[in-house]
């Protein structure tokens, strides 16, 4: 990693040059919600003026550039009784600007899951290799709990990461590609003063988290509370719409469907993002559903998010961005569910022994 400091005006010229000649996506305001707060999404941008650098958080995450809602896995062409299968792992280079630390963390988790298992996914790899990521730090929203998941800072997974230190950006450069581009612009090595400002900025970010979730020993609590009534309580609220999984930066579960082309000369095998909250997620042929109740499916989502699975060495895959909490139509918030789960057993601690008297 190489650290540089660049003036904001010079950074604007750098991003202009980069965004103009490449397919680029950055945060832009699309609307305001009922409470009057701005809604941002990652949309195509062509110059730094398009990018809302001071945005809060996008409603959808950046995962859709790597895991689109619908992706063709392979294509069949029919010829009389015969068929042929074609697969191409193709991706065009794109630039993603303005990702937050937790968004990049989420990509790192997806890397872990999709590239480090028994069967690395070439579809994902092609997209990940062809993406130039520029991250920018930000002050958290009141309901973010990235700090509790320790995803509020980031050290890998990006090409350049910018920290706002007043007049300048403090750049962490993590790829030779980015370094070569930046050679053409006026940057300087960080002074002692810049380092101080960086530390100060990090301190401010770290101190401005208002939400906190206690995740110590959460995996074992989830195991113990498998039959807890908490799941039924929250499950009864859940509408099974799957919105949480769609906005989640790390939810990657999918279904594979095949369909014939309308001219019947070909067929396409498509992968579609799915959600474990949808009713038929665990249904097998013959109609048996292994998770028939709302609570079962909601529980499963929390299991996957906060306990993790074998593929990523049982790490938590939640990054704490709280997009699911904001998007949920029924008002289910991960913070509340986890706290509820903790309180469930703590409420029966009526008899905690006090600390021993001093001798």
């Amino acid at each position: 990693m190489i650290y540089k400091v660049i003036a904001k005006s010079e950074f604007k010229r750098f991003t202009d040059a980069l965004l103009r000649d490449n397919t680029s996506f950055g945060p832009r305001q699309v609307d305001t919600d009922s409470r009057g707060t701005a809604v941002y999404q990652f949309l195509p941008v062509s110059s730094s003026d398009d990018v809302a650098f001071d945005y809060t958080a996008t409603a959808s995450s950046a995962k859709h550039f790597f895991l689109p809602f619908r992706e063709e896995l392979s294509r069949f062409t029919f010829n009389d009784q015969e068929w042929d299968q074609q697969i191409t792992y193709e991706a065009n280079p794109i630039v993603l600007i303005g990702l937050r630390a937790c968004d990049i963390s989420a990509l790192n988790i997806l890397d872990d899951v999709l590239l480090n298992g028994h069967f690395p996914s070439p579809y994902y790899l092609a997209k990940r290799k062809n993406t130039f990521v520029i991250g920018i730090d930000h002050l958290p929203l009141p309901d973010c709990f990235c700090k509790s998941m320790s995803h509020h800072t980031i050290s890998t997974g990006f090409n350049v990461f910018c920290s706002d230190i007043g007049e300048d950006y403090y750049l962490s450069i993590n790829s030779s590609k980015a370094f070569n581009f930046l050679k053409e612009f006026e940057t300087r090595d960080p002074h002692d003063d810049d380092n101080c400002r960086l530390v100060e900025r990090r301190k401010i970010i770290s101190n401005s988290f208002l939400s906190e979730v206690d995740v110590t020993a959460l995996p074992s609590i989830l195991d113990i509370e498998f039959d807890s009534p908490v799941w039924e309580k929250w499950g009864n609220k859940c509408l099974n719409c799957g919105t949480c999984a769609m906005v989640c930066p790390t939810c990657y579960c999918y279904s594979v469907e095949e369909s014939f082309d309308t001219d019947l000369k070909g067929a396409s095998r498509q992968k579609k993002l799915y959600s474990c909250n949808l009713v038929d997620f665990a249904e097998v042929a013959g109609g048996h559903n292994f998770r028939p109740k709302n609570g079962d499916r909601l529980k499963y989502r929390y299991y996957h998010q906060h306990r993790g699975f074998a593929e990523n060495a049982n790490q938590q895959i939640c990054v704490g961005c709280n997009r699911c909490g904001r998007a949920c139509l029924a008002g289910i918030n991960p913070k509340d569910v986890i706290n509820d789960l903790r309180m469930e057993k703590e409420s029966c601690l009526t008899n905690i022994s006090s600390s021993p008297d001093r001798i």
Partner: protein
Amino acid sequence: MPDKHFVIPRQDINREDFTSSIPDFNRRAEIMKTDMGYKCIVTNIVQLTKQEKLFKLRIIDPQERGIFRFKPGQFLMLELPGYGDVPISISSSNSNHEFIELCIRKAGHVTSALFTLGEGAHVAIRGPFGSAFPMDEMAGNNVLLIAGGLGFAPLRAPLFWINEHRERFLNVHVLYGVKEPSQQLFTYQFDEWEKISHITLHTIAEHAEEGWIGKTGMITDLFNDITIDPEHTYAIVCGPPVMFKIVCSYLDKLGIPMNRMFVSLERRMHCGMGKCCRCMVGSTFTCVDGPVFDYWSVINLKEAI
């Protein structure tokens, strides 16, 4: 200062010389097809019962045929272009390198389409995927194969293995329960197994039909017919989830250690590679860590059976 132009070059991962951060990415693709299927020809179709057919497949490309090897208990994804793919356990012998046999029940969208196929049709297979029965570990012991209904299909591969290495095993019992006698699979092989391979076969049907001379009752009734030496017995159980509970807890009471009982689980699968998460049981994937689990792992997994 003139305008700067930066176009990010495209990295093509289809290239042969591509070296990714995953070292064995290219090599693995040679050994095992995960996205592109092996093209197979359906050489023979046997109607076993009203609902089940036995498909005999042969991989067309001789080189690919040489690569495809599996272990008893593993499954493959059978693909019918345009309809989709389904996980099917392999029910042929793994020493048969020419043909692959799959016992399929007409249950859903893809299998219904498969049932319309005739001999000579082309399908694709991906795999093999999943874990296998530890046949070497079982050697030198008694083996108990317990099947319920269609559960006999995944048991046929280990049964073939036992037949081929009969001298390595002591007593081998097959307990096979079905709802109705007409649902029995592979009846034409019963004599061969009993008389040539000296495997004791016990069958039972829940509801007797006309002409049924065998036993009537639940699968657990068959345990009265045999004596089990819990010290030297391995069990393989396959059937509907209800059966696992009853049979395994019975064997547990007899004193067979939990890590010597193996079950083969069934889940919906879309990828077979531990990516789509459709087959998650507890914190494991049925496709990568399973479908063969020992009973100890199964009781530790929530919602497994």
